[in-house]
């Protein structure tokens, strides 16, 4: 029965004492009243105090690191005395490692493709499911692809940081 019925006053007589009445019964889905509602708490203080704690913990940790370890400061810049090897900041050492194999692909081609892939990722992975769940089984292919890419970049960065010495030759850090 998908037809909207006109009010059946014979079957559902109007009660003159009431300003409302049952007009018809619609066979359809309704609000999910049986589902337990999501537990919510007030942002102040439940959330904001936690944020403050996170900030304080972070600040304390960074302050201790800053008291114990001095930021590096080498000799004044000298364009005539290149160090061997000259290294980029650590987060670009993965790129520098790739550049040592191919200047264009390592420095420009692959990084550009990775950025485009990152931007496209949520549009490529359009099938819904697994939101808000760590390592959901229905997303294992996507997660493994992502972890493989990140892991490869991580390994390349580690190689560039620790295992490269003079003339970008392979060395052991110990």
């Amino acid at each position: 029965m998908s037809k909207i019925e006109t009010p059946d006053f014979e079957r559902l007589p109007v009660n003159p004492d009431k300003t409302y009445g049952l007009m018809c019964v619609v066979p359809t889905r309704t609000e999910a009243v049986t589902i337990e509602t999501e537990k919510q708490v007030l942002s102040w203080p439940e959330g904001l105090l936690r944020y403050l704690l996170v900030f304080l913990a972070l600040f304390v940790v960074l302050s201790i690191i800053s008291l114990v370890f001095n930021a590096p400061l080498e000799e004044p810049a000298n364009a005539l005395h290149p160090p061997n090897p000259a290294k980029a900041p650590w987060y670009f050492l993965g790129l520098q490692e790739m550049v040592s194999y191919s200047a264009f692909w390592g420095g420009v081609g692959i990084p550009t493709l990775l950025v485009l892939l990152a931007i496209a990722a949520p549009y490529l992975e359009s099938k819904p499911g697994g939101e808000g769940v760590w390592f959901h089984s229905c997303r294992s292919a996507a997660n493994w692809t992502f972890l493989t890419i990140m892991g490869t970049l991580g390994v390349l960065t580690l190689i560039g940081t620790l295992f490269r010495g003079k003339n970008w030759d392979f060395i052991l850090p110990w």
Partner: protein
Amino acid sequence: MQNLPHVDETRGKSILHRIWYSIFRSTPLPATALDRSQAVANNFFLHIHSAKVGERTLRFKTTLGLGLMTFFTFIILVVTGILLMFYYVPTPEQAYDRMLDLRSAVFFGSFLRNLHRWSAHAMVLLALLHMMRVFLTGSHKAPREFNWVLGVVLLLLTLFMSFTGYLLPWDQLAYWAIVVGTAIAGYAPFVGDEVRFIMLGDTQVGSEALLRFYVLHVAVLPAVLVLLIGWHFWRIRKDGGLARPREALAASAAASIPVPVPVPEPKDGDEPRNKDEPKDGDEPKDGDEDGGDGSKEKK
């Protein structure tokens, strides 16, 4: 006229009381749910945040606090960065001497520089970890695709922010890292040399490059970053908070948003219920009643 309870509440009260309410419009230690919601909603810095938040959102396991920590490192970097600006001169003659001054002549100068540098490394690392958290929990998926894109842009800006700051101490480490880093940009086909020249203002890393990196580092990039961080946070709220499992999503819909009840389509031969209603294929009229009320019904 809008109801202004604070005007009545503060009448005849002490000057401190009146000053407080003139700024905050809510009690210093709100105790009731209403006052606590208003403490968030009435605050300029907090109003981008919802007055209530899912218990699941606050659980450590949900996010590991990584996005929040990334933001907090940025705050630390802005404060320490502004303080460092008082002592720094972006010229090859002075930059390095100013680093030595920070060590010897400036009160807490070493600590300031250390905190700025280690926080910068922390921000890059935390942004990467935050990105991994978002992906591995599937939180980048619809309807949050664009916030993920904003996040990717923010990550690139963070890297560029760190890279431009790397040159400023003007020591061997800084100088040659930028020589190597900008050489990578030079490998781009056709435009590589031009891009490198625009970055450095010269064919070599010199005074022009130092000035450009400084301006990018202290003015341009932070301004863009602040704007995009605001956009990133605003989108979290507009996308309905953090991504959550399907069951929880239904529960949250039941809790807060009225779910439109689909009314069955009249069958052929039936009188249309409403003759003004656009039929399938009709163009929606101006002032479409669905516009903007957020309860658009999917067919």
